[in-house]
């Protein structure tokens, strides 16, 4: 027997009896960041591949939502801060070893970039739009001329943003569940998948919907592979990571993770999309909503379970 008790009565707020420093705000922010990264990635990708007219919704329309997603995400992040009025301190230093610092600066680039990208398409999509000031017209002309450069910057930053949402957690070696570098690519792919699902649901062009349905199938396959690798890694690792995996393999997170994330968020929509590609009719919003639901649940479950996983001593 080994029993360890804190006998002096420690009940620090949000730390005891188990860590719960991050509530709903962080997973929501991670989801919205990943979703925005996914949308911007596909917009830039298909622009660079010269398919902006073929996949109009992905390149021109849906990026207009991303500033809102990012601003809501940043709002959630702000709500999470305990010392709110000092939030600007994020921008008085660059800490290369801190993923949160990387993230803050990445968002500082991506948020305006998503607005700029959308702004260059406003007059094309809404012909009556008037910028009023001459210098804005000049700026617009300049940006449209340099859209290729913008797209390259956007695709790189979308990947950084999507990966960062996972790296933020995997940098904490004190929480064995988070301490796996698979979380970076897993959250990136999950974000891309959510972005593709949004396009698939909202686009009115059947060819575009089919394309993004196929992309989603591929991304789901990658996600499942990464999840299997993650658990293989845990099971072959140290005791603390074996314990972390046990929370999902018989422990308290087994049901929510395998049912909500893996089955409802990946396998079921993949099956429905496959069924539809075979020629059967399935309303696009069903797999789309399921994928987005799974993507949200993945963040919530990983953020909550990670805080419950710890070293023993």
């Amino acid at each position, binding site marked *: *027997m*080994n*029993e*360890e*008790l*804190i*006998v*002096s*009565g*420690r*009940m*620090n*707020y*949000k*730390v*005891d009896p188990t*860590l719960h*420093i*991050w509530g709903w705000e962080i997973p929501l922010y991670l989801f919205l960041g990943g979703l925005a990264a996914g949308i911007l990635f596909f917009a830039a990708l298909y622009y660079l591949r010269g398919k902006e007219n073929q996949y109009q919704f992905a390149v021109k329309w849906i990026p207009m939502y991303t500033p809102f997603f990012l601003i809501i995400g940043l709002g959630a992040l702000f709500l*999470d*801060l*305990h*010392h*709110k*009025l*000092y*939030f600007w*301190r*994020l921008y*008085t*230093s660059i*800490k290369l*070893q*801190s*993923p*949160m*610092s990387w*993230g*803050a600066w990445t968002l500082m680039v991506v948020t305006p970039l998503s607005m700029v990208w959308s702004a260059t398409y406003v007059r094309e999509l809404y012909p009556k739009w008037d910028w009023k000031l001459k210098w804005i017209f000049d700026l617009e002309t300049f940006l449209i001329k340099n859209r290729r450069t913008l797209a390259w910057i956007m695709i790189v930053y979308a990947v950084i943003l999507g990966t960062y949402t996972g790296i933020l957690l995997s*940098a*904490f*070696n*004190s*929480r064995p569940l988070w301490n796996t570098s698979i979380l970076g690519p897993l959250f990136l792919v999950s974000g891309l998948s959510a972005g593709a699902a949004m396009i698939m649901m909202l686009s009115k062009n059947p060819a575009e919907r089919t394309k993004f349905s196929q992309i989603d199938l591929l991304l789901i396959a990658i996600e499942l592979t990464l999840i299997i690798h993650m658990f293989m890694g845990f099971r072959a690792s*140290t005791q603390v990571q074996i314990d972390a995996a046990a929370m999902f393999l018989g422990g308290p997170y087994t049901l929510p993770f395998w049912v909500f994330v893996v089955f409802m968020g990946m396998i079921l929509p993949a099956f429905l999309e496959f069924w539809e590609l075979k020629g059967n009719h399935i309303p696009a919003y069903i797999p789309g909503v399921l994928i987005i639901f799974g993507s949200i649940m993945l963040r919530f479950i990983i953020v909550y379970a990670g*805080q419950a996983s*710890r*070293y023993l*001593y």
Partner: protein
Amino acid sequence: MRYAMAVDTKKCVGCSDCVVACQTENNVPIGYCRDWIVEVTDGTYPQLELEIRSERCNHCANSPCVRCCPTGASHYSDGGIVLVTHDMCIGCGACIASCPYDARYPHPDGYVDKCTFCMHRVEKGQKPACVEVCPTKCMYFGDLDDPNSEVSKVLKKRKFKTLIPEAGTKPQLYFLI
């Protein structure tokens, strides 16, 4: 200079004087604490072994909390003491999640708070409050770079361990066993 603390688990009786002294000295808000007592019972009855430890921030030499802080509020001060600059801290909680010892907490005023090794006392040549009040004199504090400091001498003489060395944090809170 490298400040460190050693706690003699053979002498500690778990009276919690150190906890109360810290709360008083540092105006720790009610319901919070920067140090605490852990009792570990090992073995099968009747062969039981009891270890009592007074724990706090380990002022790690490779601190994950300093590494992950996005603003630089968490930093190494003189002698490797890990401190939080209140008006640089945004209260994001990254350092709290990064600490394998759960030694940090969000202060009701917003910033993140933790043990400072009573730096304000140490600067004046005094011992940390917890060390000062210990009725069994089970704690030793001082500079590891000075071979004549109390802590250097006791660590030379006695066997010791640190907590979770496998986390790679290089903790500077030593437990004499």
